[in-house]
């Protein structure tokens, strides 16, 4: 039984090591930044995973780059710039608020404004309809009523 448990544990550990490599950081602050950045960078191959979750070879490479640059003293901005220069804005889960990605950020507000504008116009015309008659219509109505009372 004991042998079985240790065997099971051994298998688990081997599997865990195969999934994600571990890096030794010179300071806990670097490690925290590594975790934050690897959550924020998107795997270019798998597209809906960040590089922390993905085990695609490209994610392993990007994690290695991330580790090396952190240890070399690069700032978060420098690292993100480095990644964007190679893989485009796509690689960030929170693209910068400038240039072609501006429309991504502006679209919800713009759509809301368009919706409000449409609603205002529709409500206005609906309320306005039937309340006011034009001069010609008023005349026509008067004639009709007259004919009715004559009959």
């Amino acid at each position, binding site marked *: 039984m004991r042998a079985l448990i240790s065997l099971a544990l051994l298998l688990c550990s081997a599997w865990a090591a195969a999934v994600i490599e571990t890096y030794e950081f010179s300071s806990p602050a670097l490690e925290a930044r590594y975790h934050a950045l690897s959550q924020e960078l998107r795997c270019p191959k798998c*597209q809906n995973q960040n590089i922390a979750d993905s085990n695609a070879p490209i994610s392993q490479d990007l994690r290695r780059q991330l580790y090396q640059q952190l240890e070399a003293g690069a700032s978060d901005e420098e690292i993100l710039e480095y990644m964007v220069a*190679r893989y485009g804005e*796509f690689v960030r889960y929170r693209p910068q608020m400038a240039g072609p990605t501006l429309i991504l950020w502006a679209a919800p507000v713009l759509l809301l404004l368009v919706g409000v504008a449409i609603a205002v116009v529709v409500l206005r015309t609906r309320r306005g309809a039937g309340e006011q008659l034009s001069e010609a219509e008023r005349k026509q109505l008067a004639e009709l009523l007259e004919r009715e009372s004559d009959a």
Partner: protein
Amino acid sequence: MAPRLKLFLPLILFAALALLLFRGLSLDPQELPSALVDKPFPAFSLPSLAGGEDLDRDLFSGEVSLVNVWATWCISCRVEHPYLQKLADAGVRIIGVNYKDDPEAARRWLAELGDPYRANIVDGAGNLGVDLGVYGAPETYLVDAEGVIRYRHVGVVDERVWTRTLAPLYREVGGTAAASEWGAAPGGGP
């Protein structure tokens, strides 16, 4: 708005939506635009698969090249290999990037299947791949005579991709190989 036109509004909206969705059917969400288009090929100094001196960016000066990222573990690379050979036979200069591969296996592959490459850059660790923004082999870059990347194609290069997309661009940047005429005239092609 005229009341007549208002009646057609739902139809117009539907048609617009249908058009958008139809376009979506033929888009590949896996295909990312390269961030390196119109930028110079990244600097590198890596060994050549054939041995001898290390290769660097000077490889691209003076002649239009296709740069093909490949590996023996990449199944699609085997699929596109015969077409690359055809292009090379028609005079297109193809430079290989042997990406995260075993050089021994790569040399065997070239000996067995033929070698369409004018030279092969050995990128064992994948660092050049990262600099290029490679996210999976095969990828093919069009590099002009000044060493500037002009286009990136992700996936297999076949007759369709060459005649429709790559050949016109290849001509545009001054490529002169016989293959540049493929697809230029109606009914043309290899």
